[in-house]
């Protein structure tokens, strides 16, 4: 008994060697972190912190300061608050588009990833315009603070809509993988932060944007389950060619559908020639004119949609080839073949714009609504 008592007393004395005390209310808990590039080549960091005084209407307060790198900014920010700045509840990191274009974001993300208090499921986004302004001025519906709002929005977008996985882990792993480039959403302040487009990267530098509709093809190629909605318009002539009867006086009909399943297949003929086929199952949600979806017509509509999507797909790929960005990961597919296993990033970006990429989209209509 005495021995046990001594052990207990001695171990309790060890409490000083234990964890740092991080009592909740003494922490300046950051939920959003943003970086802007200033004209004098310095970086401005903005942090939204939670504040816990129940008597104040706002549950957040925002501080920002400039510096050469993230640690300098952090040191300066520490002077502006009586709480300990902590990042254990950080949910979103945002970069100004100019910073992403000119500097690349790898260096800043790297320090964040090395921080063991920050999880790798933190979302990363690009801001069209000033991050500081977006954090300071946007409204955020019923969310308690801007961090929660952006986090909830991204969570919804990734799970149910058209954004790709955009957390730090995905970004960094795609960054290191040869022949694939990450994508990130672009936010723009329009009262609330709005997902405007998707930023395309060459390694870690932003080289351009594509629309979220175009991003659908990236998402389809990764074989995720939920993809949001897509609307395409089919000119009447094409319908008539296929002998589908519709009302008179229309120039084109709009078909909205929801992809439910997709399967992609890469056929690598050589380093310079890839055939990419995509099988998509869709659910028709809305057609601007009545079409009788009998089995014959369904086949024809499928064919039309496939053709349309194939064209779109082709144009997106050529656009990406121009920007020297490869979010589809053709490079990694080629590298996975034994004979090309020595393919490196530099080499790939040299040949990528010239690679012949044939696309082949085939659409299958699974459901056309309850009536049928």
């Amino acid at each position, binding site marked *: 008994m005495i021995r046990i008592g001594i052990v207990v007393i001695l171990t309790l004395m060890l409490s000083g060697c234990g964890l740092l005390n991080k*009592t909740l209310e003494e922490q300046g808990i950051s939920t959003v972190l943003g970086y802007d590039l200033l004209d004098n080549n310095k970086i401005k960091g903005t942090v939204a912190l*939670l504040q816990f005084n129940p008597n104040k209407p706002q549950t957040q307060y925002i501080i920002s300061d400039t510096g050469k790198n993230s640690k300098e900014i952090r040191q300066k920010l520490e002077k502006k608050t009586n709480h300990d700045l902590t990042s254990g509840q950080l949910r979103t990191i945002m970069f100004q588009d100019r910073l992403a274009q000119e500097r690349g974001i790898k260096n800043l993300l790297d320090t964040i990833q090395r921080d063991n208090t920050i999880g790798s499921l933190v979302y990363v986004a690009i801001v069209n315009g000033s991050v500081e302004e977006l954090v300071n001025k946007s409204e955020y519906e019923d969310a308690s603070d801007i961090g929660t709002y952006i986090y909830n929005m991204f969570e919804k977008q990734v799970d149910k809509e058209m954004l790709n996985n955009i957390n730090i882990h995905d970004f960094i792993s795609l960054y290191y993988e040869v022949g694939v480039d990450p994508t990130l959403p672009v936010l723009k302040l329009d009262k609330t932060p709005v997902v405007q487009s998707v930023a395309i990267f060459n390694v870690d530098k932003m080289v351009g944007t594509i629309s979220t509709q175009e991003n659908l093809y990236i998402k389809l190629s990764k074989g995720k389950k939920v993809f949001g909605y897509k609307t395409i318009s089919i000119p009447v002539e094409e319908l008539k060619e296929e002998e589908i009867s519709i009302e008179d006086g229309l120039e084109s009909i709009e078909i909205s559908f929801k992809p439910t399943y997709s399967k992609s297949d890469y056929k690598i003929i050589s380093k310079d020639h890839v055939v990419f086929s995509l099988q998509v199952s869709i659910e028709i949600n809305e057609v601007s004119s009545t079409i009788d979806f009998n089995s014959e017509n369904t086949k024809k509509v499928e064919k039309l949609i496939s053709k349309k999507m194939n064209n779109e797909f082709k144009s997106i790929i050529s656009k990406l080839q121009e920007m020297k960005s490869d979010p589809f990961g053709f490079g990694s597919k080629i590298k996975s073949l034994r004979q090309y296993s020595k393919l490196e990033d530099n080499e790939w970006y040299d040949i990528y714009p010239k690679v012949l990429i044939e696309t082949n989209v085939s659409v299958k209509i699974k459901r056309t609504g309850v009536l049928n």
Partner: protein
Amino acid sequence: MNFFKKQAKQIDVESIKKQLSNSPDLVNRTVTVGNKTIELYFLKNLVNRISIEKNIISFLNNSTSEEINLNYLFEHLPITEVKELVETNDISKYILDGFTFIYLPSEKKGLFAGVGDPVERSLEKAETESLVYGPKISFTESLSTNIKVLRHNVSNPNLVTDEIILGERVKQKVRIVYLNDIVDPELVTSIKDRLNNIEIDDIMDSSVLAQFLDDNPYSFFPQYLMTELPDRVIYSINNGRVAIFVDRSPTAVICPSTFFSFFETTEDVYLRWILSTVLRWLRMIAMVLSIFFTAIYVAAVTFHYEVIPSRLLVTLGQSRAQIPFPPILEALLLEIMIDLLREAGARLPSKVAQTMGIVGGIVLGQAMVEAGLTSNILIIVVALSALSSFTAPSYEMGTAIRILRFPIIILAGVWGFNGIIIGVCFLLTHLLKLTSMNTPYLAPLYPFNSMDLKYFLFKLPKEFYINRPLTNQTLDKRRLIAKKEKSDRDIDDEM
């Protein structure tokens, strides 16, 4: 030698008075029938006077002096329990047990007549183990009544009630009850060995006896189940366990008991299997919650704000913002307050206790939050874990759990989640090592026995209960259940 002879012969008022420490209650009544005198000795507050008057005095008066001798009285005295005097020193013992000593000076012999009127209350509803379903009767303080209740419920000649007398100064009857065709004989021998080795002046209660039987007296946990319900005792001895009764105590000790049997009620047997499984799990989850919930709060708020869900963060932060204490002090303050309330409620008369519950629970809690001494979320946490600890069917286990949370909270406040894990490690190693009458405490999880899980962790429909629990190592392994063919036959089937 001379001394002994003298002792054996000399039976008079003085010697008996001396044996009974000059008790003023000792009555010495002399009845004279013809030329014979008969002396009666008894303690007037231990006997039934009417019985003495009717069955002894008037019986003697109606007999002739020639008839009266020891054998005649032995055969004809209208009293159920009559015993012969063997040793003079026994006189006091029998008189103290409520016997009347009838002495025949002419023969220098005597006998004891059982006219005792023991202090007894009537059978009542169980107080500490209240039930919704099933029999409500509970044991009383009288051993003979308890055995009577038991015999009444189990009319089986194999029901053994072995008696052992314990206590040096206050002799106390202890009964060991089991079914001898089911129970493991080694278990009975080891229980008897342990009981015989107990040296004590007075066994106050069966709970004291249970502590003497403990395998590990330093443990937090009760090692024997105490129950005041006859049906629970019967269920246990049917499964090959042994119950120990102590005179003057309304609770029986069931040994061996395993950890999980403390979370079992007789209602689990009576209710349908799904219900009782769910309820049993509810109680076990409540136990875990009760031990760890406050500790997790303390650890999360002190060290690990990262794990708090972001939706909860602002609410939690706001409730903590104005509190002057570190979380561990705040938690200990509230925990101690709740325990004070509980203890005060147990000590006070029930009418006052109600008022105190309202004052303490509602007024004090509300005021503390408004004064900014504790956060309202912590009040919810503490109240929930207190509530959970009350769901343990065994009072002893509930109390053990309530006390156990304090070291865990302190560990959480010192080392955060690491501390809780250290606490869990100590707890687990202790539980794994613990035994109850040489049966592993954590059976059937350790040593693992899949067949016994249905007895301890959940319940299955009746047809799965073909074997008795293997943990108890019963002689008769198979349990008799209704044959399946029989139960499958419908009323309209042809016979």
